[in-house]
């Protein structure tokens, strides 16, 4: 079994600095400080490792780092721990069971992009658990002089500062997060300029997901070839897969990219109560749903999932059995995006409302055939017409649910009741 971000999870006192140090933790950081490793060398190594962002977009991490505008002296790193894509529950475990890997990854990233401050933004709902653990880990790292002023008596000074949100899905969008750190409503910014050029307080900023940054120390320590070879076939590296829904043992599994879906299913004890697999949303609720039969043998990596019309996204895999009413699930998804739209762009603000209200109408048995067409039309009018991806996130489920389960929606409109009840 491969363990990267999860390597401390099953140990006693997983979050303590001593546990992490015993596992060789902070050795990558100490070596960088001691050798005064050139920044370009670190960026090059992360590029060659093929590490991709694990928050959803899957952009090459090293490439992102190389975009930093180095003409500006003040630069920032932001770690995105606003884990809130429905179906995703991996960063919550990294933050509470392996917080020092996040800190070490943030330090290395700060060093590589020339940032003196790295903020870790945790979602507000983590205040009772992860917030406490992460703050304590930062305190420990200070005591060991691994962060702060003149780290390990070198001339490197980097602060790692935890921040807390207060409940807003949209803040997971990187520019909305910058707005939130600036103390404003979380409303996404128009890009360009990209954050690497003009980010937090107008200064160059790199934003990476928690799991991405937690992976960085292990790549520096074990080398880019080691990381590359962790995948299966052409896939590079590992991913934490969040397995939820109708499973006998829902779980978060760290596994090589390219692992067949059927294997992940087996590791979760199969479908709940031995029912049949009906549908899967493989990357958080905003990616397209696929039929069970289309994904069962599919390797779980970016390209293979693309080839069956969906995405790996955040790795939030929602599994649905044959008893699932697809109309009800889509209504729930649409309710969420309607509630969480920030309201800045008209197609999203109005469109998400139309989608939700139309689905409520269908589910209450008052829908007509033309409402199904309306759903498709509204979804297509949102997609690609907004500042950020929330509108697309609301539209993609609608389009894919209708495409893959059209007969079930037609049945509901026709018979005024669900096909599965």
């Amino acid at each position, binding site marked *: 079994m491969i363990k990267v971000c999860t390597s401390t999870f099953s140990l006693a006192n997983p979050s303590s600095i001593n546990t992490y140090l015993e596992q060789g933790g902070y050795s990558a950081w100490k070596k960088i400080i001691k050798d005064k490793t050139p920044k370009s060398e670190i960026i090059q190594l992360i590029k060659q490792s093929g590490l991709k962002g694990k928050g959803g977009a899957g952009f090459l991490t090293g490439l992102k780092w190389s975009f930093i505008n180095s003409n500006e002296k003040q630069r920032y790193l932001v770690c995105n721990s606003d884990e809130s894509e*429905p179906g995703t529950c991996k960063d919550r475990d990294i933050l509470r069971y392996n917080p020092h890997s996040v800190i070490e990854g943030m330090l290395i990233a700060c060093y590589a992009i020339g940032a003196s401050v790295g903020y870790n933004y945790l979602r507000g709902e983590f205040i009772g658990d992860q917030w406490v653990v992460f703050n304590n880990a930062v305190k420990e790292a200070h005591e060991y002089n691994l962060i702060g002023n003149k780290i390990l008596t070198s001339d490197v000074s980097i602060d790692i500062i935890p921040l807390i949100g207060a409940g807003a899905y949209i803040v997971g969008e990187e520019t909305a997060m910058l707005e939130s750190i600036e103390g*404003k*409503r979380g409303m996404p910014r128009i890009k360009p300029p990209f954050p690497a050029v003009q980010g937090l307080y107008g200064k160059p900023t790199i934003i990476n997901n928690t799991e991405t940054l937690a992976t960085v120390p292990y790549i520096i320590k074990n080398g880019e070839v080691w990381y590359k070879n962790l995948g299966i076939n052409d896939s590079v590296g590992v991913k934490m897969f969040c397995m939820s*829904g109708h499973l006998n043992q829902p779980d978060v599994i760290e596994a090589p990219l390219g692992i067949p879906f059927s294997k992940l299913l087996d590791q979760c004890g199969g479908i709940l109560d031995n029912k049949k697999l009906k549908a899967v949303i493989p990357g958080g609720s905003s990616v397209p749903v696929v039929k069970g039969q289309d994904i069962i043998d599919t390797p779980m990596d970016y390209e293979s999932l693309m080839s069956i019309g969906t995405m790996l996204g955040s790795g939030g895999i*929602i599994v*649905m059995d044959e008893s699932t009413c697809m109309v009800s699930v889509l209504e729930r998804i649409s309710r969420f995006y309607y509630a969480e739209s920030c309201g800045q762009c008209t197609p999203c603000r109005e469109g998400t409302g139309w989608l939700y209200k139309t689905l409520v109408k269908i589910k209450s048995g008052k829908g007509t055939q033309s409402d199904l067409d309306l759903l498709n039309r509204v979804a297509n009018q949102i997609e690609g017409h907004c500042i950020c991806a929330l509108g697309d996130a609301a539209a993609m489920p609608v389009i894919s649910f209708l495409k893959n389960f059209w007969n079930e929606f037609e049945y509901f409109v026709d018979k005024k009741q669900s096909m599965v009840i």
Partner: protein
Amino acid sequence: MNDKNNFPDNLIEEIDAIKSKFPSDKSKSAIIESLLIIQHHNNGYLNEDLISSLADFLNVTKIDVYEVATFYSMFNLKPVGKNIISVCTNVSCMLRKSDDMVSYIEKKLKIKVGESTKDNKFYLKNEMECLAACNGAPMMQINHINYENLTYDKIDKILDEINND
């Protein structure tokens, strides 16, 4: 807590510590975490006086603070019950019957979602977000502590324990 202009010393200390996380000319950045702390010291809700006080203290406009207080779902702008219950009803939890859990709690506490109990012990928040504990579905947070793999029996036990506290 004093609603008017002056925060108690311990609160001032906490807000100063939050301010020190940001560049000295960016005190606006301290609004969110400060509001969370102020709310915590004020029985779980905010009012206009407190919002004004924080604006004065941080030297920002009242609307700066007010727009934050109204945007983020964890801020309550009216009094709520002491223990805040958020049941996740997003997709993963819905598939594991979270809607039944909500109905059960509503019946047990004799309130609807969005309401507080008469004795002010509980507030059942209308939670829209996924609470990132999908492998523990169905789940709820009470005062931001997770309770996972819920059953009716489990809910009884948890709520009765808090009620008898």
